[in-house]
């Protein structure tokens, strides 16, 4: 490996690998499905054929041309409810990933940059959260604050910040110790420049992978809490609580099956994206690409 290569900022090569990742068919499928759900979430009031809360005398109707995915125990149109469900799950999942990143990223960045007791405190805190299974902790939080979608979001933020903190801390530490930062310092450039030019762009890649994976996990966890009756409350067309309703009406399988398929499709799409982004940003593949 040449000296120039060793001292150059690895981020540029990572970004250059992204177009390669897009050529993977699964990445493309993931992107299309996520985009489709975003459109559905934005336009559901206009594309849903029925009011998601409107009850009708047509109870337990199997899927037909009038009701594409059938009707539930109160005669509500399952298709419309699934479409409206995107409006609840997707924005909330994204909101909580952003919140978890802001909290975890800040704490992890401080831990990695400052070291010492700050690092000790943050990382031990993260260990606590890791040691208790996510749903147990989230359940305790929701039980403490009372059930409700907002409290469920808070609970999921509380259990997911440590993932971000660990990643960001590790990255900040590695980058601050790397040769190109040291060279920059020797040349007299200020710390904030090292942070802005070397650290931030290098964090962006792994963090975007984590965000994609976490959005999927956030949707799973949120819907699980709603399924247990600790998140969204019954009339809301939330996917997890719709599955829970379906569980009480086994004969009418369509009530619970379709919201579940909605969850699988969006989470799978996020995981397709995350998986191929990970390949693109894996530092080992990057080093290999540079012939080390």
């Amino acid at each position: 490996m040449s000296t120039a290569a060793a001292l150059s900022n690895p981020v540029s090569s990572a970004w250059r690998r992204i177009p390669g990742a897009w050529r993977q068919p699964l990445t493309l499928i993931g992107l299309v499905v996520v985009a489709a759900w975003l459109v559905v979430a934005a336009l559901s009031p206009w594309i849903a054929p029925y009011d998601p809360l409107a009850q009708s005398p047509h109870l337990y109707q199997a899927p037909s041309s009038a009701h594409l995915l059938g009707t539930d125990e109160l005669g509500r149109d399952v298709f419309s409810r699934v479409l409206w469900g995107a409006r609840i799950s997707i924005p909330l999942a994204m909101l909580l990933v952003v919140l978890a990143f802001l909290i975890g990223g800040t704490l992890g960045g401080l831990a990695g940059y400052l070291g010492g007791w700050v690092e000790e405190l943050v990382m031990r805190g993260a260990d606590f959260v890791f040691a208790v299974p996510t749903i147990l902790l989230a359940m305790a939080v929701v039980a403490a604050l009372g059930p409700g979608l907002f409290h469920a979001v808070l609970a999921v933020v509380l259990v997911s910040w440590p993932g971000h903190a660990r990643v960001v801390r590790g990255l900040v530490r590695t980058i601050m110790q790397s040769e190109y930062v040291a060279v920059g310092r020797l040349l007299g450039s200020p710390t904030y420049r090292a942070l802005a030019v070397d650290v931030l762009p290098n964090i962006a890649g792994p963090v975007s992978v984590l965000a994609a994976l976490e959005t999927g996990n956030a949707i799973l966890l949120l819907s699980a809490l709603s399924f247990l009756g600790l998140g969204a409350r019954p009339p809301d067309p939330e996917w997890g609580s719709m599955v829970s309703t379906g569980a009480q009406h086994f004969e009418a399988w369509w009530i619970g099956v379709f919201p579940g398929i909605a969850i699988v499709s969006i989470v799978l799409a996020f995981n397709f994206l995350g998986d191929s982004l990970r390949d693109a940003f894996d530092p080992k593949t990057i080093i290999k690409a540079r012939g080390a």
Partner: protein
Amino acid sequence: MFLCLGVSVMAFVLTTLVPGDPALANLGDRASSDPQAVRLYREHFGLDKPVPVQYVVYLNNLLHGDLGESEQSRRAVRIDLAEYIPATAELAVSSMVLSILLGVTLGVVAALRRNRLTDQIIRVVSLGGMSTPQFWLALVALYVFFFKLNWVPGSGRLDAIVLPPPHLTGLYTIDALAAGQFDVFFNSLQHLILPACVLAAFNMGLFTRFTRSAVLEVLENDYVRTARAKGLPELTVVFRHVLRAASPPIVTVVGLAFGNVMTGTVLVENIFAWPGIGQYSYRSATGLDLTAIVGVMLFVAIVYILVNMVVDILYAVIDPRVGLA
């Protein structure tokens, strides 16, 4: 040790923040309108004392192995846990075994067939396992295999008419085998198989992904090329050279995945009416039973720490370069 203390503090603080009054939640309507009953209830559970005092009392009891008394079952949390743990252990261990076997096999195959069709199919299957909500998968499995096909019995650990085997470990399959009751063994196995498979799906996917990338890394080493050049059979190369070198990251992720299993049991046990700590903790959470939740959290955290200690020891066994510092 430090971690245990931290978990106990966190769990305790969390559950004392309850705005809902546990006395009112557990006494029922008539009793909670009686101030005398509410006062007696609070005194009985020490809820009338200031919060720091409550914690010190709790911690002191904890050091004597006493997790306190559940406000719902009116029994020591320790006794409750002892009753529910074997059921969860049976479920969790069998699902772990399943997911490790499947995940590692699929991961190795995917790595050997990198970027071919097999790899893509395994990618879809493994990511699918990680993307499917366990509560939904459990319901669909129950609908298909129990309700429609009637291949497996519905919920619980045994058919209602079957008596549990004599208590030895609390794991019905093992107890039944030890007692020579093969009918009970097969019955408990039939009850176990569906929830265990559902529970295994997520970790199967996780292990597949990790095994694939770990194996890919090892495959590029010169000694693998040498082994192949020597004309060793592919299976020998995979098992003797590749899998051993690839195992440290896999073992690590298995240790960490223990938390996923516990998360899954809460959902799966509720759906399959499996009388384990997952169901117990859900009932405790909805009943605002703080002592019970803290007890479960503490127990799970201790097991998690133990599991990951075992992982560290395994590390040293697998990789001679790692010392047992």
